[in-house]
């Protein structure tokens, strides 16, 4: 019986144990077919080998100089480490949250986003305008595929089932912070979501493939991301929902336009935290993020250089929407207003009060003044 092709290949590459190699050699010596088979792949192997030989360079940097360079790299990291830790705590959730906020802010993406990333509902603030027309097309449809594709890279721990509660007192006891509600609210639901963690291990090839798939192969993710694990800890949260917030589906299974929904959602939780390996290239990621939302590379580089990614959440806001800085009982926040042709509004108010993050969304026949009054009246 002839040796298998892989065995012949391993024999050619001297990769067989000695005894097996002896057996194969004896067979090959008397087997013309096997010699032809070996000659077939040996031809390609030699062709490739000769060309790869051209890439070889005799000189490498001496070890002691390389060591000195590495030490300087490590020392630099040591100096930046305390600052970076702050960056990681603020900017990574910021980027993720910013992405999510825009998903929620652009009606056509929002429905998909609800299913895709129901877990995140956060954060803090700086605004950059973008034109939704510049976003990749059919993002909503593809997001479902991405969800499946990325599933292996996400690990969820904790979390658990949401628990419906009947009063602010009950919610506060479960969540461990004072839950605020609009005074006199009726017919609402109040849900406690236990804390959880999401760990994301980056498989660069897949992430890059996603960008390629979205037609943004020009955005090259930094190689050092590969294999990095980023862990987002999402504390206990409480969600107040009033109105008809179910996302209607058309008979064909697609999502209905969101302006038909009349819904108020208030989410409150302590600041989420993020752990990421040192050296996460924040500015580079920031630039990719900005370019994804339609900035030119030059604009993104300029903007990214001006932004302190340690403290700033950059929220992309569709250029059809208005936004303004507001204060909610002396806490800083941003109010977003986006009006549909029908006259109904999509309003978002995000503010940070000490350790707590609040996010209020109003959909339907409401005004910005109402949103602000609602936020300021929370008790």
């Amino acid at each position, binding site marked *: 019986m002839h040796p298998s092709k892989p065995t012949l290949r391993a024999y050619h590459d001297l990769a067989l144990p000695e005894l097996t190699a002896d057996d194969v050699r004896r067979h090959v010596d008397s087997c013309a077919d096997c010699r032809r088979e070996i000659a077939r792949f040996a031809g390609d192997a030699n062709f490739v080998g000769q060309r790869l030989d051209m890439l070889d360079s005799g000189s490498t940097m001496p070890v002691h100089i390389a060591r000195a360079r590495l030490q300087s790299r490590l020392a630099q990291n040591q100096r930046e480490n305390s600052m970076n830790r702050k960056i990681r705590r603020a900017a990574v959730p910021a980027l993720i949250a910013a992405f999510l906020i825009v998903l929620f802010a652009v009606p056509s993406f929002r429905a998909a986003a609800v299913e895709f990333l129901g877990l995140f509902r956060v954060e803090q603030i700086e605004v950059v305008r973008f034109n939704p027309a510049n976003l990749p097309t059919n993002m909503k449809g593809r997001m479902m595929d991405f969800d499946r594709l990325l599933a292996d890279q996400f690990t969820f721990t904790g979390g658990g089932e949401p628990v419906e509660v009947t009063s602010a007192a009950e919610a506060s006891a479960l969540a461990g912070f004072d839950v605020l509600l609009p005074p006199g609210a009726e017919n609402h639901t109040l849900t406690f979501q236990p804390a959880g963690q999401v760990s994301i291990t980056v498989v660069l090839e897949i992430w890059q493939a996603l960008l390629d798939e979205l037609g943004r192969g020009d955005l090259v993710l930094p*190689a050092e991301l590969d294999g990095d694990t980023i862990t987002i800890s999402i504390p206990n949260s409480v969600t107040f929902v009033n109105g008809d917030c179910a996302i209607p589906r058309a008979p064909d299974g697609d999502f209905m336009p969101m302006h038909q929904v009349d819904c108020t959602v208030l989410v409150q939780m302590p600041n989420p935290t993020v752990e990421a390996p040192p050296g996460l290239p924040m500015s580079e990621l920031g630039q990719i993020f900005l370019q994804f939302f339609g900035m030119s590379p030059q604009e993104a580089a300029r903007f990214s250089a001006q932004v302190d990614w340690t403290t700033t959440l950059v929220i992309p806001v569709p250029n059809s929407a208005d936004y303004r800085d507001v204060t909610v009982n002396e806490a800083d926040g941003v109010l977003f207003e986006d009006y549909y042709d029908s006259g109904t509004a999509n309003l978002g108010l995000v503010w940070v009060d000490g350790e707590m993050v609040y996010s209020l969304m109003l959909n339907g026949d409401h005004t910005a003044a109402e949103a602000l009054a609602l936020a300021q009246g929370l008790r």
Partner: protein
Amino acid sequence: MSITKPWNAKYMTGPTDQTAAFDDVFERLWPRIHRLLIAIVGDPAEAEDLAIESFYKLSQRPQLLEDGQNPAAWLYRVASNLGYNALRSARRRGRYETEAHESSLRIAIPGPEDETSRRMEVAQVRSVLASMKARDAKLLLLKHTGLSYAELAETLGIAPGSVGSLLTRAERKFARRYRQLYDGD
């Protein structure tokens, strides 16, 4: 020769025996990792940065230096990822295609033809590698570096029994593509 021994522990994240293990890995593998990256990206300075980055990443994962771990396979994996990523990124900018094209124009002009021709071929080889699937390109490059079948399998996360077949397939694709594009023989 080492100018700073023992390894400067204050910058390392692990205990002393791990810093010694790291030092050992660095001494042993620096030349091979640096050479691999020069082969992949061509520019020695860029290769040096990527090699430093690979070892830096290792220094941040002291658990890889514990007994029973294989930091060499991990380093090769990281370095080949970084290198291939840089190669692909250069290809997106059209660097190798331009070099290959410019060199082919220059070759018509009388001059140091050997050097011009060599540079053109090198650019062509990198261009073909950059156009291949990541695993195929890395397999060819790492095999060429001298990794054994077992090391290739561990580095690239493939079954040891599949290395030969995958290698044969990757070589066939490289040769076909190279001949298609550059009519090499």
